[in-house]
């Protein structure tokens, strides 16, 4: 079991439900330090005050600051409880016969608890735990010193910083864990006793023991060395699980929302470009093969040019129909309305924010702007006369004389552009009406188109 490779996840295991063992830490040359847990504490929803016996040794505890680092029942490892006083440590939840590879304690653990950071490290003389304390002179760095690759160096640096003499990396520590129904004992030297029914030999599998270092002078307990902000936040296991569940849902929602936004803005544009190219080729093919036929639904039959929106609407195919298929390949013409040049209302729809967004800049259109429609035989030049923002169901805008506009212009051949408003919404529709001002044969290219083509040639 590689202790420093076990990630602390306080939510993956029920916390504290089995913390009921008296533990004693014995360090050579120092008095034993004991921690008492309440044997009668409830196993569910245990509060810190439930399993800490303040009565027995009240001076040791500030209940709210006692921290459960973790338990690792899945890994057969112990609980660790570190007290904020900085020098006491508890190993817990070792069932009878369980073993712990204590040699791991030669290293260290930087553990993140609910509210603070706790450093557990092994020194040549035992195990020490360091509790960051607000107000201490050394401020922790923002870097995560518990990361695997830098863990050891950082801890060594910390150890050096708090000692007058640099602490060398500890030699292999011989330690032994013995388990009894009442307490766990951690000591740097193995002690075999006939009185202990659970001595080392009885623990399965045997604890791996390495060579014992020479006894060294007992160092002072290491004072708290870091300062942190302890929010004092307390959560029960259930609320934490609920919070995790909610966070998972929110993260998932965010991922899909971002994906959908990318789909609408980026992906749809790519899709539209391909469809536009295909539709334009189809229109030009239809002009050659059957120029005079009535366009079928979904079929492209004309190209649109709007000089004011030249970057978006220039040679853009117009297909019959206003379903998604037509609108992603350019502009769609309302199938029940007139065709270009005919009496009535030649009505077009186009996207404003997705699928190539041909009418994205409809707000830039002005009165008298041209809308040029190219068919197999003719150019139809319309001039815009009026715009209005209407409700989505205002079907009257598609009428042959919407709002009596024909009465004002005297021209029955109309064009209507419809798109959404606001740009990233669908609550309204932006409408532009125009009237036919000129019809040219296909070889009489309108000035705006011709000048643009010449510009391209030059």
């Amino acid at each position: 079991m590689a202790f420093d490779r076990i990630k602390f996840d306080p939510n993956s295991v029920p916390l504290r439900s089995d913390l009921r063992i008296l533990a004693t830490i014995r360090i050579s040359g120092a008095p034993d330090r004991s921690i008492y847990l309440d044997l009668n504490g409830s196993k569910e929803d245990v509060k810190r005050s439930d399993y800490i016996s303040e009565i027995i040794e009240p001076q040791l505890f500030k209940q709210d600051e006692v921290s459960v680092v973790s338990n690792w029942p899945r890994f057969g490892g112990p609980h660790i409880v570190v007290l904020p006083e900085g020098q006491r440590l508890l190993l817990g939840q070792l069932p009878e016969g369980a073993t712990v590879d204590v040699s791991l304690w030669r290293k260290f653990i930087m553990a993140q608890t609910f509210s603070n950071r706790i450093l557990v490290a092994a020194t040549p003389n035992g195990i020490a735990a360091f509790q960051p304390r607000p107000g201490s002179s050394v401020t922790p760095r923002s870097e995560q010193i518990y990361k695997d690759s830098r863990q050891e160096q950082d801890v060594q640096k910390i150890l050096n910083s708090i000692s007058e003499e640099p602490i060398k990396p500890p030699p292999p520590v011989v330690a032994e864990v013995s388990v009894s129904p009442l307490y766990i004992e951690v000591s740097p030297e193995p002690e075999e006793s006939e009185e202990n029914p659970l001595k080392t030999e009885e623990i399965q599998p045997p604890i791996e023991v390495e060579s014992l270092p020479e006894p060294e002078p007992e160092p002072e307990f290491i004072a708290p060395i870091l300062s942190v902000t302890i929010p004092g936040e307390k959560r029960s296991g259930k609320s934490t699980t609920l919070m995790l569940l909610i966070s998972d849902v929110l993260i998932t929602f965010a991922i899909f929302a971002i994906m959908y936004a990318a789909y609408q803005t980026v992906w749809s544009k790519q899709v539209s470009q391909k469809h536009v190219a295909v539709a334009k080729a189809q229109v030009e093919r239809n002009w050659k093969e059957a120029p005079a036929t009535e366009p079928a639904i979904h079929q492209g039959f004309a190209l649109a040019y709007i000089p004011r929106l030249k970057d978006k609407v220039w040679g853009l195919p117009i297909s019959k129909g206003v379903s998604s298929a037509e609108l992603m390949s350019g502009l769609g013409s309302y199938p029940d309305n007139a065709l270009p040049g005919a009496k009535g209302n030649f009505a077009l729809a186009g996207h404003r924010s997705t699928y190539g967004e041909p009418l994205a800049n409809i707000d830039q259109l002005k009165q008298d702007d041209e809308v040029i429609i190219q068919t197999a035989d003719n150019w139809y030049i319309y001039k815009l006369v009026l715009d209005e923002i209407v409700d989505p169901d205002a079907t009257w805008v598609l009428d042959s004389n919407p709002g009596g506009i024909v009465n004002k212009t005297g021209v029955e051949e109309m064009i209507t552009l419809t798109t959404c408003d606001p740009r990233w919404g669908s609550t309204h529709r932006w409408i532009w009406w125009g009237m036919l001002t000129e019809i040219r044969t296909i070889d009489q290219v309108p000035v705006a188109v011709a000048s643009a083509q010449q510009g391209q040639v030059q």
Partner: protein
Amino acid sequence: MYSWIWSKLPGGKFAKTFVAVVLLAGLALFMFTIGFPAIEHYFKVDQTTITE
């Protein structure tokens, strides 16, 4: 959930990151080509037509 997925990914940190990116890209491709087009009708942000 995500920590569980992360724990199940093979390899070290970089391998996990790579696999996670590949999985995310696969998910995005699936959603872009199949998922979103199927549900797009219900979540249109750009309805351009006049309808009754």
